[in-house]
Every structure is written in structure tokens, then in C-alpha cells.
């Protein structure tokens, strides 16, 4: 059952790539249908896990990845349906497939550590996952911006010129995704800090992981680094005219850090977030 969403995401990836190459509207609709099916199957899997363990599975690293993929798929579908642009799918789907492979092949029933409780913990995790999904979209939009920008600058109007929306639209979509992501990142970090302070004095007093929750922990440090990168991007785009290509590069850099923080750091380096 865990593999069904993964297989559907992979099928949608093939359809999006094919649609991108051929620009056939029928292929495009089937790609969207496959992705909707994948998201529904994924919703079902997450729902089953929720019923099984009694809470939304976000507390373990693996299940958090699964939930992130689900949120990203839904956010992408929202963007696709509101803008009627399918070209971005071919860039976002590889990420979905690659990340979903982790929970797909390593399902592992989530058992929540007893310290991870309270409403603030839920807010912390879900706002960060949503922020990361927005940043993923911003990154993909930024990459397409740069590809199109280079074609127009080089005066060689070819593959991407025929397939992508205008630079202006891409820039605006990128900015919007960054703003939304930044708001949720800020909420997530602040709420996480409050939760850690409460836990340290109360129910998590004996847990070494709660004690390790400080700026020296790589996970927390890199999260703050992300916050600075995105804050700078927002400031630069508004105040010093760093829109367009520079903003696109920055959103790609920001998301590489997010991804690095999300997968390898959680699994191998962090002492405070390895639940």
C-alpha cells in the first residue's frame, strides 16, 4: 500500500515529461489526472496511518518526508489549477518521486516519542513542512526562470521559449511562493522555540534530545540560516532590485539548504531532531 503513491507519482512524472516534450493537451490532462490520483492515494495512506497511530504522522523523520511530499503535491496542483500552467510539473515531479522513495521503501510504523506532545508541536512541524513545500515550488519556478532567461538573452528562442510562461509570470510566482514559505518558516521556528522552552522545563526534562535543542545543533542552525537566506531574498527583491534572475538563483540556493537540512542532517547529524 505504501508503494501505490510512489508508483502513481512515477507514472505522473513520465506523463509530465512526455507532455513537456510533445505539448499534446491530451497527455497534459492525463498527467494531471495521474498526479491527482497519486495525491488521493497518498491522502488515503496518510489517513490510514493517522487512524493507526492516533495522530497525523509527522513526528518521525520518514513520515515527515511523506507528509512533505503530500503537501508539495497538493500545493503544486493548486498552482497548476489556478494558473493553467503544466510546464512546471516536469521539474517538480522528480523531487516528489525521489523523496517519496524514502517512505515508500522504508515505511516503518511511526512511534511517537513521549516528549513530542502538545498543540505547539503540531503547529511547529506542519508550518515548517508547508514552508518547505513552498520553497520547493519557488526553487522549481526559479530554475525555469533562469532557463528561459538564458534562452532570451542568448537570442536562441527554442525549447523552453515555446513551453514556459513569461518571465514576468515566473518572477511573480516565485516571489509569491517565497513570501508564503517565509511566513510559515518564521511561524515554525518561533513556535518550535517556544515548545522547546516549555518541554525543557516540563515533560521533556529527562530527554537528551530536548536538551540538545540549541543553536549548536546543526538542524536548528541550518534552519536559521535558511531563514536569513530567504529574508535577504525578500529584502533584496523589494529594496535593491534583485528580482528576476538573482532572486531565482537565491531561491534555488535556499531550497538546496532546506533539502540538505531535511534529509541528510535529520538522519545523520542532528542530535535534537532524530525522533
Amino acid at each position: 500500500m505504501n508503494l501505490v503513491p510512489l508508483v502513481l507519482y512515477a507514472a505522473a512524472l513520465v506523463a509530465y515529461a512526455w507532455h513537456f516534450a510533445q505539448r499534446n493537451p491530451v497527455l497534459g490532462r492525463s498527467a494531471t489526472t495521474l498526479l491527482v490520483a497519486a495525491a488521493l492515494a497518498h491522502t488515503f495512506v496518510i489517513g490510514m496511518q493517522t487512524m493507526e497511530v492516533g495522530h497525523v504522522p509527522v513526528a518521525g523523520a520518514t513520515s515527515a518526508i511523506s507528509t512533505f511530499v503530500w503537501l508539495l503535491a497538493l500545493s503544486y496542483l493548486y498552482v497548476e489549477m489556478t494558473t493553467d500552467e503544466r510546464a512546471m510539473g516536469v521539474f517538480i515531479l522528480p523531487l516528489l518521486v525521489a523523496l517519496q522513495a524514502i517512505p515508500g521503501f522504508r515505511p516503518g510504523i511511526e512511534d511517537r516519542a513521549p516528549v513530542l506532545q502538545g498543540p505547539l508541536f503540531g503547529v511547529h512541524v506542519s508550518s515548517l513542512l508547508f514552508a518547505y513545500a513552498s520553497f520547493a515550488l519557488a526553487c522549481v519556478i526559479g530554475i525555469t526562470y533562469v532557463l528561459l532567461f538564458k534562452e532570451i538573452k542568448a537570442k536562441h528562442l527554442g525549447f523552453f521559449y515555446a513551453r514556459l510562461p513569461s518571465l514576468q509570470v515566473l518572477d511573480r510566482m516565485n516571489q509569491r511562493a517565497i513570501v508564503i514559505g517565509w511566513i510559515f518558516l518564521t511561524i515554525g521556528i518561533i513556535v518550535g522555540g517556544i515548545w522547546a522552552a516549555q518541554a525543557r522545563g516540563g515533560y521533556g526534562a529527562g530527554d537528551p534530545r530536548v536538551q540538545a535543542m540549541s543553536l549548536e545543533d546543526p538542524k536548528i542552525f541550518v534552519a536559521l540560516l535558511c531563514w536569513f537566506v530567504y529574508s535577504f531574498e525578500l529584502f533584496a527583491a523589494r529594496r535593491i532590485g534583485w528580482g528576476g534572475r538573482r532572486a531565482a538563483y537565491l531561491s534555488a540556493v535556499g531550497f538546496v539548504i532546506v533539502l540538505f537540512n531535511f534529509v541528510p542532517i535529520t538522519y545523520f547529524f542532528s542530535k535534537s531532531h532524530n525522533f
Partner: protein
Amino acid sequence: MQLLLVGISHRTAPVELRERIDFQARGLTDALRALAQRGSAREAVVVSTCNRAELYVACDEATATRQDLVRFVSDFNGVASGELTPHVYDVTDLEVARHLFRVAAGLDSLVMGEPQILGQVKDAHTIASDAHTSGPVLNRLFHSSFAVGKRVRTETGLGSGAVSVSYAAVALARKIFGDLSGRSVAVIGAGEMGKLTALHMKSQAVKHVTIVSRTMAHAARTAEAIGGASAAPWEELDNVLAASDIVITATGAAAPILTSAHIEAVMRPRRNRPLFIIDIAMPRDVEAAAGEIEQVFLYNIDDLQATVRENLARRASEVARAETIVNEEVERFGSWFRSRGAIPTVVALRERFEAIRRAELERLDFKLSSLPPEARARVDEITHLIVEKLLLTPTEQLKALDNSEAVSAYTEAMNRLFALTNQPGDEQAERGRQTKGGRVEPFKRPTGGRR
């Protein structure tokens, strides 16, 4: 029934002749009526654009009709037929379908894949429909051609990419700015080229067009000629540049009027808002190095011409795919067209059966007259249904025949088996069938008796 096409186009006739053969100017409806009155064609559609004048007709005998059509074209347009004949082409039956499908797809156009022609073909058919000169055969033919046009548009790249310099410039501006409606355009230079480009931009519904010229009077005159544009003196150039999104330079200056450093200075107060510069002047008005500046997109006339050439080459490479679609659709139309050969037999068969039914009812009329009207209606209905049921399978089978040998063999057999001698014209029968929903003239039945 045969299909026939007689016409001239940009491939066969010089523009001087095409100008004189213009059905559009003399009224397509009048032309269709005049054509119908001659009686040589059963159905007719006239496609008339500046690049072609073509008569599509369905007729009984193509050779005679062809001559009459050429005479009609010459009479109607007042062009001597000796002058016309060397430029006229004609094809029959499925080649007519192939020709029309290629026309609708834009494969026969002067500019390969241009989109207007499909609309013109549609209009031509609508006008013929309204004038009642198009019938079942041409309706089917033209509807198939619309489908071909649509398929070629969506399944191939035949119509993609701008193929003129001004459209290439507008397409580029769209790719940079998205919607152009909120954008400001500056035109530097008040010459003829600048004016034409400004007019073209104006037609794209941009927010504002400003003309800048070294001579303020020239700028003002050009702005007035365009209408809705404003003029600015040369001293204002930097402010105009800073406020504009698209800049078109078209001065006659011998040296560049905008250096790279100049544009870099203008970009600073713009906070890196994109600037699209189109340099259509010869020699160049803008230093090539300006194109290196972040968020400056500089295209000169050669660059635009190069993209046009690329687009034309890309269109040419799509021709084979479009031709495949045309072949498929010709095949499909062909099997329908051939199956029509059996229609006279079908009609004769139905009329024969109906005649027998009616004769029997009349023969028994004295016995039935004692029945109440409801019962009489029921008898009529039952006998009608029996005839329909008996004819259902043979009708379907006859209509499914799609090669002419089988059609003639079956026709022969039917004629013998059911003694079908007097076959009516299929045209009339087809009309009859259309208006009465497949039923032949019914037996007089009392109204209100059906349950």
C-alpha cells in the same frame, strides 16, 4: 455523385489575375446563387481569399461541370476565359478532399501554417450553408476539413512561432512581460519605420506610447498621426527610458545614440525592472554591449529576422506530420464518400417496401373502415414498424459498403431481387430523409390515436 474542385491560387496565378478574380468583393452569396442557377452543380461552396479563389462542387459528371465552372468564373468576374484557363487547376473526388484539407491545415498557404485560412474556410462554408448551396456531401467534406485544421494546430508545430519580424518582436515582449496591457513603449526616432512599429505596438493595447525625436516638431507630428501617443523632447530621453518597458530605436543616426554606459545608468533608478530594446535602425542605434546588462534584452533587426528564419525552418520540419494527419482524414472521408454509392439503392428499397405496405392497406381499406380510429392507427403503426424492422439490417449493410465494386454488385443484386427500376435522384431522397427523420411518406393516419 462526384466531387470537383476548380480554382486558382498563389501557386498558379500571378497577383494581377488573382486581384481580378475576387468573389468576396462581388458578394459570395450572389456568386453562389448565380452558380446554382446554372444547374451544373448540385452543391457548391466558394472559398475566396486574397491568395485563392476555389469552387468546391458536388456534381453528376465532372468533365462537363468543369467546363461550365471555368466559364462561370470568367463570366462572373469579367475575365476572358482564354486569359484564365492556363492558370486554372482542377481535381476530382478524394483529391478534392486532400486539397481542401491541406488548405485548411495551412499547408497550401503562402506562409506555411498561417492560422487565418481555417477561419476563412469556415466562413466560406457558413455563407454557402446560409445560401442553401451546400448539401450533405460538401457539409461532410468541410466539417472534416475543420477537424483537420484543428488536429494540425494541436498535434503539430506547423502554426507555432512568429514568422514576421513585427510579430516576432511582439511575441518576445509577451514572453518577457506577459500581458502587455500595462506596459509603456518608447519609440526613438520619428521616421517612417518608427511610426510603423509604434502603430503595431499600439495595436497590442499597450498602456502608453511615447515618441522621442531630436526635432520635437517631428515627434509631435508622428504622435498625432498615430493617435493616442504622446511626444517628448530629446532632453527628456533619460526620463522616458526610465519609465518605459519596451524601447524601439529607429533613428537615422550614423553612430549609436545609446551606449552601454548610458543604459546602465538608466537601469539604476528602474531597480532592474526588465527593459526590452528593439533596435530596428540601420546602422545600429544601440551598442551591442548593452545586451550584456542584467535585465536588458536587446534585439536588433538581424536577431529578429534570425528567429523568424528559425521558426520557418521549424514549421517546415512539421510538414510531414501534418501531411500524415491529412492522409488519415482523407482516408476516413474516402470510406464515407464511397459508402454513399449505395444510397440510391437504399432509398429505392425503402420506397418499394413502403409502396407495397400502402398498397396493401388501401386494398384492405374496406375491411378496416369498420374499426375505430385508434385501431386503424395501430394497424398503420404495426405495419410501418414491420417494414422498418425488415429493412434495418439491409440498410445498415448497404451503407457500410466502402468500395465501388461491392456497391455496384449489391446494387445489381438488389435491383433484381426487389425489382427496383425507377431510382430517384439521391439528392432529393437525401433531403427527404433529412426532413422526415428517415421515414418515407406515411400512410394517412388519424391524429391523436397514438399512445
